[in-house]
């Protein structure tokens, strides 16, 4: 059997198992185990399963994942999301589509404390959707902005997806975390322009909010800033520490999580139950991710043994004249996979195949990492399995049909065409902050 058949056949088997609701980690691990058995023998397959899991978990770099998750969970349970939303409404509520614009930037701000897109979508949906519906906002816009705004969290550090990509693609995690900042701000800005444009052209979509007492509004604006200082402290502590080279991602995450706990307790926003729930969220999600990760590592070993990377490198050498063709091909792969797979499954399935191809063409793997994370964000919004859309649907219940949320997201997916074109055409948007590292 040729390497191409083995590689693509294994991928097809994994997708089939995933489609049958087999957990992604089991699908990848089981197919890889059988593949190793087929390529070598049962002893080799068993020895990979014997050694890989411990070595994979006992890893300092990966310890950033539970710490970033913990920081986000504590921030979420101490009401940072509420404070951010209130502040954003006070400062941006008067703009056309003000509540949606505020939700969008509150999501971006929440991204500085949390690394999970899905958590951000859930938190903002609970806070912002009732408020927007009360002001007679279009249901698609109200839900679409929460689902789409949530994807900003994967770009703005701390980001779990970047840590995972960095480990598997063997790229500097600090560089990746910094590379996500400007694309994150760009995405939020383009979303804002679209929301304001829609609201300005058709005020029925987002009826303007009147603030009668200007003096009271300004008092509220200044007062609201006092509520979001914990986010500023976390940004300075984590992003500043990483940028200054003072801390590693794990150290930044641990210190950020401890800081979030201390702030939450001092401000009386974090009680014992919230504290325990934060740890359950973070540690449970870590175990969930590593269950998939082990399957992925075994699968990567299998692909390496099958010679997949070498084969794709040779293929690229034979036909890829223009790197843009590869970027477009990768984009199409991610768009299709994003319709069905969760973020982790997408990254872990594609990295062993695509990263060697990008490396063979000397394309910057940090830039590619940003594109991958953007495509993962898009995958969270595309039907039929747009995870963020389902999370928002879970929050709104029967009040708003799933189709309306997907329709609301299409406007944001339209923005993504512009954003992705800019990120592909100008890699410097992603790489500028990483210069000097």
């Amino acid at each position, binding site marked *: 059997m040729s390497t191409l058949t083995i590689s693509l056949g294994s991928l097809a088997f994994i997708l089939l198992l995933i489609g049958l609701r087999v957990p*992604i980690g089991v699908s990848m691990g089981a197919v890889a185990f059988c593949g190793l058995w087929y390529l070598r023998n049962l002893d080799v397959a068993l020895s990979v399963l014997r050694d890989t899991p411990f070595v994979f978990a006992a890893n300092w770099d990966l*310890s950033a994942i*539970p710490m970033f998750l913990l920081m986000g969970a504590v921030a979420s349970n101490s009401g940072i999301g509420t404070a951010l939303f209130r502040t954003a409404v006070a400062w941006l509520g008067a703009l056309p589509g003000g509540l949606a614009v505020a939700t969008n930037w509150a999501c971006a701000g929440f991204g500085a404390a949390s690394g999970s897109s899905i958590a951000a979508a*859930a938190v903002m949906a609970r806070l912002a959707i009732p408020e927007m519906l009360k002001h007679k906002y279009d249901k698609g816009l109200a839900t679409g902005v929460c689902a789409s705004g949530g994807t900003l969290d994967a770009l703005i550090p701390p980001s779990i997806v970047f840590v995972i990509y960095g480990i598997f693609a063997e790229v500097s995690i600090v560089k990746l975390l910094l590379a996500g900042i400007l694309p994150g701000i760009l995405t939020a800005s383009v979303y804002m322009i679209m929301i304001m444009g829609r609201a300005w052209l058709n005020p029925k979509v987002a009826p303007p909010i009147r603030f009668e007492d200007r003096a009271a509004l300004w008092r509220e604006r200044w007062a609201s800033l006092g509520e979001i200082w914990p986010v500023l402290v976390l940004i300075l502590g984590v992003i500043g520490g990483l940028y200054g080279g003072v801390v590693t991602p794990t*150290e930044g995450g641990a210190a950020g999580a401890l800081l979030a706990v201390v702030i939450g307790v001092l401000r009386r926003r974090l009680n014992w139950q919230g504290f325990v729930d934060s740890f*359950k969220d973070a540690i449970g999600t870590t175990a*969930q991710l590593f269950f998939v990760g082990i399957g992925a590592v075994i699968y990567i070993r299998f692909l390496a043994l099958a010679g997949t990377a070498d084969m794709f490198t040779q293929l690229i050498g034979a036909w890829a004249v223009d790197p843009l063709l590869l970027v477009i091909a990768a984009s199409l792969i991610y768009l299709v996979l994003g319709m069905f797979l969760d973020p982790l499954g997408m990254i872990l399935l594609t990295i062993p195949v695509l990263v060697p191809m990008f490396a063979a063409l000397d394309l910057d793997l940090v830039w590619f990492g940003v594109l991958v994370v953007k495509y993962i964000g898009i995958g969270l919004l595309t039907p039929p399995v747009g995870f963020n859309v389902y999370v928002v649907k879970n929050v709104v219940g029967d009040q708003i049909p799933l189709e309306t949320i997907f329709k609301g997201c299409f406007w944001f997916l339209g923005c993504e065409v512009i954003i992705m074109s800019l990120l592909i055409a100008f890699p410097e948007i992603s790489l500028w902050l990483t210069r000097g590292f």
Partner: protein
Amino acid sequence: MKTVDKLLEWLEWPINLLLWIGLIAGFLMMIHVSADVTGRTVFNRPFAGTTEIVSAWYMVAVCYLPWAWLTRNDNHIIAGVFERIGTAWFGYWIEIAVKIFMLVYVSVFAWQTAVRALQQTRAGEVWEAAGGFIPVWPSRWVLPAAAILMGIYLVLRIARDVGRGYRPDQHKIDVREGGV
């Protein structure tokens, strides 16, 4: 069926015990790393062996001990497509088949990691750190312990689900808020 239900109820105790050990490991990781950063940046005195202890002890506990708890809550990352197309009855049988498949996978996992844990225990595995040695072999047992508990839970769940038979009201596609 009552026996299976009772056993599942009893299993809550070890499931929660392992989860709590994982939570405590996560808490200790946060404190230990923060103390190390503070010691290094403020007092120029880092804690010896932080990297090794975090990697070999806390991380292994955090990554594996909640497995049975995740399985109990149906919280593994899935992205089913076909069961949305098929009938609920089809979905019910797919779920049982998936659980059996998971049981086989996790059993081989438990067997092999236990073999390695035994070998490393006999060898007295240690890691060298800051001029001393940190014992690592106890951490090796976390993997088979977590996998065995998950396997036992799966056996009982399969027995309960098959025993109860297909019930239309119990099969629905759920949405979780975990993940990245």
